């Protein structure tokens, strides 16, 4: 049943474009509001030190073959010593990041602010779209779709015979939701091009799980076999010089 519906150009002028414009403006507004509300994060000394320890342990892993065996061993011992090694996390005390997050009032406030700043505009915009722009076909998607998308894309349209390519404005809203990142990066500068999808991803990842990282680094270090690379360098230097001298 592939009849071509002719859509009124008024739909384009009064639905699609205003909806996009509104979403862009809301994004910009959110960016400025978040800048205003930004509480300067006071770095926690313990977390900072752990982060640095991890970087140093990673460097040790990466460059292990460049330092003499004795130095490597003494450093490894320093890190993974059972009593007071830097990477050793005693079993009971592994900081539970979730608990820490909720007990630390600053972090809880920050998370709440981030979540709110995302949920409220989304909810409002969605309600606005539903209220004003429902009940008619808004656009036609250029490629054919299966029937399963009908419930998602054609929400206000109660005719089951209309081709699934004709979608309601709700789907245009979702399209904008996921697609405006490129536009934001142009307007706001490349670093601020976070749109809603990324924010949602940020909501998922809860926190820097330091204790697991430390344990992982310790295991990684324990596994390394030291293979001093320097003797090989001597031979390579020989060949380099030979070529140079010729």
């Amino acid at each position, binding site marked *: 049943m592939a009849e071509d519906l002719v859509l009124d150009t008024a739909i384009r002028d009064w639905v699609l474009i205003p909806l996009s414009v509104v979403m862009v403006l809301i994004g910009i507004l959110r960016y400025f509001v978040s800048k205003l509300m930004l509480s300067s994060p006071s*770095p926690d*000394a313990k977390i*900072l*030190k752990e982060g*640095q*320890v991890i*970087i*140093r342990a990673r*460097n*040790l892993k*990466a*460059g*292990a073959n*460049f*330092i*003499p065996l004795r*130095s490597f061993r003494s*450093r490894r011992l320093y890190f993974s010593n059972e009593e007071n090694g830097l990477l050793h996390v005693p079993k009971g005390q592994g900081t539970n990041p979730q608990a820490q997050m909720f007990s630390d009032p600053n972090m809880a406030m920050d998370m709440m602010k981030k979540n709110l700043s995302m949920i409220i505009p989304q909810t409002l915009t969605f309600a606005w779209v539903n209220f004003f722009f429902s009940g008619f076909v808004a656009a036609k998607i250029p490629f054919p779709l299966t029937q399963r998308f009908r419930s998602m894309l054609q929400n206000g349209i109660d005719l089951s015979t209309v081709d699934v390519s004709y979608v309601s404005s709700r789907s245009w809203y979702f399209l904008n939701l996921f697609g405006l990142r490129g536009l934001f990066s142009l307007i706001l500068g490349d670093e601020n091009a976070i749109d809603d999808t990324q924010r949602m991803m940020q909501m998922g990842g809860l926190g820097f799980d330091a204790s697991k990282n430390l344990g992982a680094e310790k295991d990684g270090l324990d596994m390394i076999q030291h293979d001093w690379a*320097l*003797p090989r*360098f*001597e*031979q*390579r*230097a*020989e060949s*380099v*010089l*030979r*070529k*140079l*001298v010729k």
Partner: protein
Amino acid sequence: MVTKTEERELNQLENQVENGGGGVWEYLCLVRKLKVRRSELVLKHGLFILNDSGKRSALGPDEWTLYEQVAIAAMDCQSLAVAQNCIKVLQKKFPESKRVGKLEALLLEAKGMWEEAEKAYSILLEDNPLDQVIHKRKVAMAKAQGKPSLAIEHLNKYLEVFMADHDAWRELAEIYVSLQMYKQAAFCYEELILSNPTLPLYHLAYAEVLYTIGGHENLIAARKYYASTIDLTGGKSTRALFGICLCGSAIAQLSRGRNKEDKDVAAPELQSLAASALEKEYKQKAPAKLSLLSSALRSMKL
């Protein structure tokens, strides 16, 4: 560290600016981004922009960053009056700012008023105990006052928290070398090599420290690190070439008494090759000194 392209761009802009072309603001921004130390030029051109109120207002909000940059450059060139003026302007605009507080403490340091500067830094540290810049300023002050042991103490405390800061490790290594505490310096250079294993600078420095400590094992290790420097620089490091020759002769001297069971025969020709490479380089770059070199090399071949 500054990459080659950035360095080239910087030099290009510098030439342009010095010869009267435009591009002063880009140059200043680049200097700020790369954190290079070009205080005289920054002072001259920055002041030129700041004194011209038309250009100053054209900068908009970046004006204050420029004030900060010029203030620091002025302190580096010891034009303390200029620095004082800049800081006064900044103080008027941002009265309770920590950043301006840092500049004030820096000015006290530049004037040589060590106790006041110390006090100012402690107050700043109370508010923000994890500020890297302030810790480093304390180390610099200790060094400037000629108290290297105090500087070492501060640096060690700093590195306990910020152990991934390779600039700090480098500074510590240099202080140790100046105090002839070579074993500790070797430790620091090892840290540096771990953080950046392919940087020949660190290999060279480590090799020199090992050579200075002396002893059979260390000399063998030093030779290996000189070799790795040669490999990483493609044979261009004259110091490393000399290092190999010296190591070879030192090892030969040490092992004259012992039996050569464990002689390092991984690269037997390395020494002679290094000598010939040295001669070649001297022929190209300093032919007048070639005879000195040849006689020195001959005396080393024990």
